[in-house]
């Protein structure tokens, strides 16, 4: 008899606990956040340092203008830099943040999975159109006629070169290389090698932002035809580009170069900062770190050399803000997106973070066009390319990186490796 009493007690405690748990979870689902009836917008971002300050300022100004909306910002390490597992599981679990800071080049893939809220209607209502932004930024934010993201930043890539090193070896610091032959000649002069160790190295094609997309376009190649949906990693000019990179690697010894780059770091340990690397490809975001860690460094920037010395080009990426599928407070989220993407929000963010705005007039008003270094980055934007808007963007990126690694290390010819990329990405797209 005692036992049944005990059973009942345990059962009732158990039921009580279950009901409490259920109450908690339903509360979370309906309430959205702990602060009850306040209109709270949850934002996940991956920004630290100067851009971290910039986003805080944007939020502050937004909250001042919209006193009824409260922003709850959470830092999520590496979100958007190929590590979106947390966001992915949050969306799959039906409990995502209201706004996520997101790498634009992944928008298409996520939109295709139905994991982002379409913004087309909201944008139409509020008169936000393509005309507000750089064309490529808008394209990357859209997928199959629908808008899924509000673009926030952009960038471009150029050749950085150390003017003091140029003078030291008798090169004209005001006349940086424009053709590949000149680039190779300069690199050879600048390199100091002892045994298999580099004291200083002139140039490493794939270092920093020297991704294959940039080289392919600089050689006149192309990667994707949006009309036919054809993947063209093995475009003849792409193959030439990779062949050139491979030869460059062989000349200097790929493993010796790897030994050199493995010994380097970022920030103050960047070999360009420490004077161990004379030329590198980097984005405008690299300028901020040079200003911080090497304010006296005498350097210049110039378009990435091409085989012919003209038709300079570059490529641009950048970030955006999205509303994940199933977000609770979509109205509040849209208000924030709208503000972040507006001229005002862009000016606040760009001024502190030193990231380029996606709105041309903002970049002009912030004086980027007058700064001798930043102007070069801005001036090349009209010639800039954007990575293919496709559902397999991440796979394409990784496959190209693999092809460069394999080719430079003599594992298959550039032709073979790029054909493999075409095949792999085409197959993945066909699924």
């Amino acid at each position: 008899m005692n036992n049944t009493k005990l059973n009942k007690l345990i059962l009732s405690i158990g039921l009580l606990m279950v009901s409490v748990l259920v109450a908690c979870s339903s509360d979370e689902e309906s309430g959205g956040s702990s602060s009850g009836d306040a209109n709270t917008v949850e934002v996940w971002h991956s920004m630290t340092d100067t851009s971290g300050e910039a986003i805080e300022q944007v939020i502050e100004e937004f909250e001042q203008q919209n006193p009824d909306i409260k922003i709850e910002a959470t830092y999520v390490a590496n979100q958007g830099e190929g590590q979106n597992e947390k966001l992915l599981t949050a969306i799959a679990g039906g409990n995502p943040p209201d706004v996520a800071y997101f790498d634009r080049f992944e928008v298409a893939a996520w939109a295709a999975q139905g994991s982002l809220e379409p913004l087309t209607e909201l944008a139409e209502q509020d008169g936000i159109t393509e005309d507000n932004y750089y064309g490529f930024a808008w394209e990357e934010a859209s997928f199959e006629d629908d808008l899924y993201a509000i673009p926030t930043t952009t960038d471009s890539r150029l050749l950085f070169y150390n003017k003091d090193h140029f003078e030291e070896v008798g090169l004209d610091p005001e006349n940086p290389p424009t053709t590949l032959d000149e680039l190779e000649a300069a690199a050879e002069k600048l390199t100091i090698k002892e045994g298999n160790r580099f004291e200083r190295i002139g140039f490493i094609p794939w270092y920093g932002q020297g991704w294959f997309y940039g080289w392919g376009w600089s050689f006149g190649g192309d990667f994707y035809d949006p009309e036919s949906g054809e993947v063209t990693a093995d475009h003849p000019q792409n193959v030439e580009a990779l062949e050139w990179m491979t030869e460059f690697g062989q000349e200097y010894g790929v493993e010796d170069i790897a030994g050199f780059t493995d010994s380097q770091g970022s920030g103050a340990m960047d070999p360009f900062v420490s004077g161990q690397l004379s030329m590198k490809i980097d984005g405008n975001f690299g300028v901020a770190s040079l200003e911080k860690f090497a304010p006296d460094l005498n350097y210049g920037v110039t378009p990435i050399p091409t085989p012919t010395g003209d038709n300079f080009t570059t490529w641009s990426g950048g970030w955006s803000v999205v509303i994940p599928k199933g977000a609770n407070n979509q109205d509040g989220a849209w208000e924030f997106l709208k503000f972040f993407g507006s001229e005002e929000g862009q000016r606040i963010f760009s001024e502190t973070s030193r990231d380029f705005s996606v709105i041309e007039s903002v970049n002009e008003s912030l004086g980027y066009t007058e700064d001798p270094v930043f102007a070069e980055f801005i001036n090349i934007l009209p010639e800039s390319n954007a990575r293919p808007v496709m559902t397999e963007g991440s796979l394409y990126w990784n496959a190209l990186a693999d092809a460069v690694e394999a080719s430079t290390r003599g594992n298959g010819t550039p032709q073979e490796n790029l054909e493999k990329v075409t095949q792999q990405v085409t197959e993945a797209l066909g699924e």
Partner: protein
Amino acid sequence: MKNKMNQANHFSATAGIQSEMKRKSKIAGSSLNGWLFALPWVIGLILFYAFPLFSSIYFSFTTYSILSPGEFIGLANYKQLMNDGLFWQSIYNTIYFAVFFVPLSIIIGVALAMMLNMKVKGMAVYRTIFFLPTLVPHVALAVLWMWLLNPGFGLVNGVLDAIGITGPNWLGSVTWSKPSLILMSLWAIGQPVIIYLAGLGDIPQELYEAADVDGASWLQKTFKVTLPLLTPVIFFNLVMGAIGAFQQFTLPYTMTQGQGTPDNSLTFYVMYLYDNAFKYFKMGYASAMAWILFIVIMLLTAVIFLSSRRWVHYQGR
């Protein structure tokens, strides 16, 4: 438990029918209480282990992407895997690692345990020293060894330089990246060593005394007494080590930021599985990979178990 229940049953058979019923209800009641107490764990196991485990069998036949349920595509995932170059590369890398790491970890582990079993003053200190690396988290271990093996200023090449050898570019070379990883993994070998030490402590002293009386040398004692009686422990570590080696993930993933560089020489099976699941939206494909890995590990473990009859000697049998 079982004994008690048998006893109770036996008891009730001799007693009257009424008391038998009373006792039965008491037994049923107590096992119910047991289940009630275990319920949170039982529910947890079913919900968070058994259910995902078995549903992944189904998912491996679909294009499930975490975000969308996908379609049923039969064996297409498995067929595609057979034609996936990187899949085979990752299998090669994983087997390479397992084939070298597991035997080396046993040889070095046993040798180390035997050294740490000597009767020398301050042995507790030495044992602690060799166990300490096990306490270093994998991510810290990766960073530490990236510094040690750095070709420019690393300690390892510095020492090699001092004795006139030009060290290779360890982690930057396709040839040396996997050996480097094996070296790192061997450094954190403390856990099996502790188990070997326990095994050594289990060997009866009389056997050594008898061997001494027979005039056995140190070598003979090692190979005729110590090692045979250590085989149950070696067997255990072999199985666990093989399973662990096939699941190698944290070290190479942290070291290469998930890229498996250089030239995919550090792309291990589980790393590629992870990329498919969480980067390329191919959870179905990844589930298929997981089940292939499961079958491989099961087969391997079965082979080790079957062979164990020939070489594992249990005391008192």
